[in-house]
């Protein structure tokens, strides 16, 4: 279950979230520890030592299901994300990808 991209964090694109590929297969980076919280979750990457706070339990559900879902889009849909919310979720996933919390699956 290797990451298809480098684990180095990359600079943000100028259009936040728009370049994130919702139709690709994603997964949590293997060095990330997920700690559910009342309001969402804390993610800590032991390699980069970065800390991210997910401010929605629904986003946690999306992130937690990425590895089993065909694509990030189907992970969002099955977690109950409404169409109107998709851009916000795309932006959130883009941020997580930029900080190497999630990465593309090679399989």
């Amino acid at each position, binding site marked *: 279950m290797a990451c298809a991209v480098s684990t180095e964090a990359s600079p943000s694109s100028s259009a936040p979230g728009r370049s994130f590929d919702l139709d690709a297969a994603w997964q949590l980076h293997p060095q990330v*520890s997920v*700690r559910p*919280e009342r309001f969402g979750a804390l993610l800590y990457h*032991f390699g980069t030592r970065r800390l991210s*706070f997910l*401010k*929605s339990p629904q986003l946690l559900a999306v992130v937690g299901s990425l590895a089993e879902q065909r694509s990030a889009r189907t992970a969002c849909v099955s977690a109950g994300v409404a169409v109107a919310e998709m851009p916000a979720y795309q932006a959130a996933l883009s941020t997580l990808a930029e900080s190497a919390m999630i990465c593309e699956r090679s399989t």
Partner: protein
Amino acid sequence: MTTTTPLPLVEQFQLGLDAPICLTWELTYACNLSCVHCLSSSGRRDPRELTTAECKAVIDELERMQVFYVNIGGGEPTVRPDFWELVDYATEHHVGVKFSTNGVKITPAVAQRLAASDYVDVQISLDGATAEVNDAVRGTGSYATALLAMQNLADAGFRGFKISVVMTRQNVAQLDQFKAIADRFDAQLRITRLRPSGRGADVWDELHPTAAQQRELYDWLVARGESVLTGDSFFHLSGFGDGAGDSLPGLNLCGAGRVVCLIDPVGDVYACPFAIHDNFLAGNVRSAGGFTGVWRESDLFADLRRPQTGGACTSCSAFDSCRGGCMAAKFFTGLPLDGPDPECVRGNAESALLQVAAGSAPKPSLDHSHRSRPVALTLTTRRAPVSDCNENPLAGFSPSAG
């Protein structure tokens, strides 16, 4: 369909979490140095120190709670014979480690070992960019020890270790030099606030930055501090800022008892390392519920996690940024906790400080200082001892007649 806007991060953290995000763990009060401002008044080992087995039990709890990393300090943590055993145990149990050291044991061999480990970070303490400034606070030879440790780490290929500086009146002028030292060793500079905690209370008047220096420090951080860590130490200076572009790095909130805490060498759990005093003692890891029980159920932490009123500060326009400053700084200077920080950038603490009777500020509950300490040559101490043997605080005092 509208999405409910989540609470700002700061507000959610202020209410506390089921486990700390990270914490400070002072492994021992023993230390080879006697820094004049030591926040834990370290020097002599406490005979009640947690055993190796007890330390491992704490690490097991931290793993279960998913505490992401611990900052191991002291005293000088590397003087504990089981130090490496405990570091290895922590990293094997999914708890990252950063340890703070004066560098005394960072030999080339140790540096190699550290460079090979992915989950151990090192922080070398340094309080002067020159031996003259550093050694006045940390003791003769301490600068050389620290620089040697840094050289060994750099030679072993350890990039990004931390150099941690406590900002004082004597070293604010050296900020650029500190940055240069960090760059030289491919290390990361970290600057933190001096607190009137532990022995810091004795030297606070002479060492804490002046109001003008605070402004200098703030401006430097805004202009040059992008890659400089601060441990969110300077949120009390946020009152200087007037826009989002001028904000300092960090959450800008007091994490004590909410997202962080201290475990001391005898297993006592305090709200934070700057508040080693019975008033901020939440419990002990040796109790039935262990560390988990203390974190989740202590009365002290429940109090800290309730929404705090700003008290006298709420009407101030800076309050939203500075949040009333540091609890420990107020406490150990004898100020009320619901009023301004002793270093309030608006000067709101000045009159309150004048009203604090000399000697009446709370003293630390513990003192593990070495019995005889070198007296720093360039600092004046509050009371010159009558003789090295006489520990009576009233020695040499005679009430004036009439």
